[in-house]
């Protein structure tokens, strides 16, 4: 088991390097470069400034040299510095933006799981019942609704018509002058709408997976035997079926881990939440390569780790996989 984990980890290194190389090339292929974005592109003076910035950023060197420099810095865990006029370290910038994105996405993920599992189980055990049909419709509506549109509707309803919730940002403008509990409520109220929007879309997929997985399990023979044994339906579903039905969900959960960091771009954008998603989009607009690459390397490293963790967890919870591996 340990040897297996170790081997997978070793394999992940060249894979990660491969991913970063491809990303690096693709990012640099996009038309326009950061020096151009900062100097404009018409006058002769702008052209001089442009050449100077290019040298400063090292963009005048061949691409493979640039990549090699970037890679050698990465080994020392140095993600470089932003090309923006503030020139701050990429790691600091990510450090500032990460907490709020993590908070939002973890809460969102917990809510999704907490809702999707019961919805999935209930619709599976009562397949084609009214509940199943209603949730199916609801879930597909959620799946089909664009985030930004739903966000705007909710902002208009709760922010303007009813005036119950703030529209955007993280804190009210007089936050510093509130009491401790007011501050907590203020912060929470700013998060309600973004979480609602993000959850609504994510719920759909998850509850469908859960339903499908459950449907497969309850048709198995061992469920029949459990019923034949005279166990209560509650125990059959809740204990024997659910445990097995959750297996694929573990994989999917593992794969959503990188999403926790990548952030939901649209939600952050429209609600003006200064998280990772916003940082990434801004960096893409400004062609701020170090920030983009820093983000990418973290997300891809995490994806690889999550993949590995999911595989390991899988073999841990599912004896069949362990056995087959031992035979091989």
């Amino acid at each position, binding site marked *: 088991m340990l040897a297996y984990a170790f081997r997978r980890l070793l394999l992940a290194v060249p894979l990660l390097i491969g991913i970063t190389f491809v990303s690096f090339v693709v990012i640099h292929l996009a038309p326009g470069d950061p020096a151009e974005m900062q100097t404009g592109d018409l006058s002769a003076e702008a052209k001089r400034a442009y050449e100077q910035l290019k040298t400063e950023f090292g963009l005048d060197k061949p691409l493979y040299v640039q990549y090699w420099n970037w890679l050698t810095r990465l080994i020392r865990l140095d993600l470089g510095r932003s090309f923006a006029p503030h020139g701050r370290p990429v790691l600091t910038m990510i450090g500032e933006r990460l907490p709020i994105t993590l908070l939002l996405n973890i809460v969102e993920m917990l809510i999704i799981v907490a809702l999707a599992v019961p919805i999935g189980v209930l619709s599976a055990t009562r397949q084609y019942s009214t509940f199943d049909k209603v949730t199916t419709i609801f879930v597909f509506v959620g799946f089909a609704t664009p985030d930004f549109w739903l966000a705007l509707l909710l902002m208009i309803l709760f922010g303007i018509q009813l005036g119950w919730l703030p529209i955007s940002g993280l804190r009210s403008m007089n936050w510093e002058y509130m009491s401790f509990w007011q501050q907590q409520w203020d912060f929470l109220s700013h998060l309600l709408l973004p979480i609602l929007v993000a959850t609504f879309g994510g719920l759909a997929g998850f509850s469908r997976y859960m339903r499908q997985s459950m449907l497969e399990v309850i048709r198995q023979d061992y469920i029949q035997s459990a019923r034949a044994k005279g166990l209560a339906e509650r125990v059959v579903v809740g204990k024997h079926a659910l445990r097995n039905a959750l297996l694929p969900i573990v994989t999917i959960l593992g794969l959503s881990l990188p999403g926790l960091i990548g952030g939901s771009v649209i939600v952050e954008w429209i609600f*003006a939440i200064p998280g990772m998603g916003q940082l990434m989009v801004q960096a893409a607009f400004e062609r701020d390569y170090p920030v983009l690459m820093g983000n990418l390397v973290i997300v891809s490293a995490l994806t690889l780790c999550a993949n590995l963790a999911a595989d390991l967890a899988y073999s841990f919870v599912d004896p069949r996989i362990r056995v087959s591996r031992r035979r091989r």
Partner: protein
Amino acid sequence: MKHRSLARLGAALALVGLAAGCSGEAAVTDGKVGANTPAYGDTLIEASIGNVSSLIPNITSDQASREVGSFMYSGLVTVGRDLEIVPELAKSWAFSKDCLTLDFKLHDSVRWHDGAPFTANDVVFTWETTVNPKTPSPYRSDFQDVERVEALDPYTVRVTYKRPYAKALLSWGLSILPRHLLERFVKEGKLKDAPQNWSAPVGTGPYRFKEMKSGEKVVVVANQDYFKGRPNISRIVYRIIPSQATIFLELKARGVDIASLTALQYKRQTEYPAFQKNYNKFRYPGTGYTYLGFNLKDPRFADRRVRLAFAHAINKKELLDGVVLGLGREATGPFRPGTWADNPNVKGIPYDPKKAVALLAEAGWTTRNDQGLLVKDGRPFTFELLTNQGNDERKKIAEIVQASLRDLGIGVEIRILEWAALLKEHVKKRSFDAMILGWGTGADPDQYVVWHSSQTGPDELNHISYKNREVDALLEAGRASCVQADRTRFYHRLHEVLAEDQPLVFLYWRDVMPAVSGRVFGIDPGPAGIRWNRDEWFVPKYLQRYTAG
């Protein structure tokens, strides 16, 4: 991304692609600017779609950084209501007769936000910093004609120019930087690393830095020791909200106090009592105009009568109504309406299709072929009209122009191209027939780079390849003089010549339409927009909303 003008007070011309800054003629005010008594206090909440990229405005070129910088820094001069140059850190100034030396007398009681005194040394340092090749400053070209800058005494600065430079005075609107804090960073070429660039900016401006949350907001508070007297509004929160739609919703929910409106928002979406009660809407011409430009190397367009016919054929009033819901004004030339360079006696070219037909006939376009197109020397009059993608206004204009010219018997094919491709493949290579683009203008009227016949190279801005001796002479005279009365004369004449010659068809200046919370008093919109007297804005005590200060 294309929306950047070059200097805080505007360099010659912003780049192609209209910069939507704020300035122009004070024309319509829907607001009720009343006579309440000024009071100190309250918070003003502004919103910006762009991120702040640095807190030293001398090394940035984006609008958000420039606006935030203007709270905390001051220049030697600034611009007043009518875009005239007014003193700021300098008490007064004087040019020598030959316009080659410029002496500034500085205020002697100004202190930096950290308490250190401001002196002529800081001015010299700011110049050294700007021209230092290691400083990534977009303003260096403003100082390329400067021979030296010296401190004659602690409160007198002498600038010596190699040749007369019309924008000399205006270029000193540059934010002055503190030598005692930044000198060692500049020497090492590491100005970006200075704490003043991100966490602790120090200026002499009306507001002090309080805090910044990256990607969220910048907060500044009134500088009690500001040398012109502390501003009335005690705190300003500059929020970063990337989505335009969200800003508008925040405005409706009174979460933002000041924001620009689109034509549709101005006309249709804010015309309800609650909004009108809470906000004043303002309207004045923006900094840029839109035009229909020709490639004058094409013999058809080199003929003035053809260009004039086009100008007569386009109904500008209808165009304005159709494109910007009437929220703009006809352009008669390249100078911002209401500013000193603008010649109010120049009249626009009236809509007159009959005259257009006559002019074309005069130019030899008389016979029509079986498709109804005008033909000369066996070739029908058709051309390609280019504009950039993602600008709905320009697309609509192209369609209107197409329809108007079709009636005259001219075939127009519209092509909409991605910005970079349009610029690189067509504009720079001069391979186009005609195009619809815009010019942004700065605070100084010098437009040498756009109209002078020496500026027709691939990287230069005379895209249409315009050559006119009188225009050349006027442009040269205008930029070589430091006497405004003379310059006014040159530019008024230039305006006349351009209007007669129509090297391009001047279409319209689009209006800027900010909405400002109704509790803010003292706003006086002028050609420079509304922000020129921001420090005098106030909220009467009984209307103050935020107790914070």
